[in-house]
């Protein structure tokens, strides 16, 4: 349900004219909700940025997500790959 909450808050923020991108842990949920931009990650529930105390991995995930901010062909649902 976290995924649904993220998508609904995201849509409200984007409607204010602010570019948004979200991390998706459950592709099934995100593909139905269709927020403007999301990146599905291959990590377990509870681990959206990959692993605790792994700044390099967290930075790679963040960088990949931020790249999507310029996409205007919404809804965007990309897959994160290492």
């Amino acid at each position, binding site marked *: 349900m976290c995924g*649904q909450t993220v998508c609904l808050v995201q*849509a409200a923020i984007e409607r204010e004219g602010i570019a948004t991108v979200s991390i998706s842990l459950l592709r099934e949920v995100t593909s139905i909700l269709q927020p403007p931009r999301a990146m599905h990650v291959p990590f377990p529930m509870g*681990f959206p940025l990959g692993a605790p105390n792994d700044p390099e991995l967290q930075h790679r995930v963040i960088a990949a997500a931020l790249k999507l901010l310029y996409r205007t062909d919404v809804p965007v649902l990309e897959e994160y790959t290492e």
Partner: protein
Amino acid sequence: MASYDDLSTVTRAFMKRFPFARHRIDPVPRARLEKPLAQCRFALVTTSGLHTPEQKDFDYRKALGDTSFREIPNNIDISTLGESHRSPSWDHRGLAADRNLAFPLDRFRELEARGSIGPLNHRHFSFMGSIIGVKPLVGKTAPEVARMLAEDKVDAVLLTPV
């Protein structure tokens, strides 16, 4: 990789039957980012149930979910944040070990220091996912947060679930 198959039998059955399509975002809003990231003011939004030590826990007793939010100041030491997310569907140990796992404020401070992004906003926001009755979220609290971010002249937001 997380998928419905990783969830408990009860949660999986619930998720498969839950009418997510009822809440499909349509039309899909689209904001255009006109500046380089190095000039963008950023804010974070998480649904991981984090809150400052002074703030109230999220209310796990509300059957339809707690749709309130907590404002997290940008100057917080994130290791002091409490976590009161009620869901047993995810492993809480990772977030307990490192708040950046779902609220990567230290990573964004590093990006800001490197000049890769513009300034971080003076506040960020936290919700607790696990919301079944979304009406108060969609009608009230999500637009409230969105308006505050717009008032702050935030350019871009990263949202993270758990």
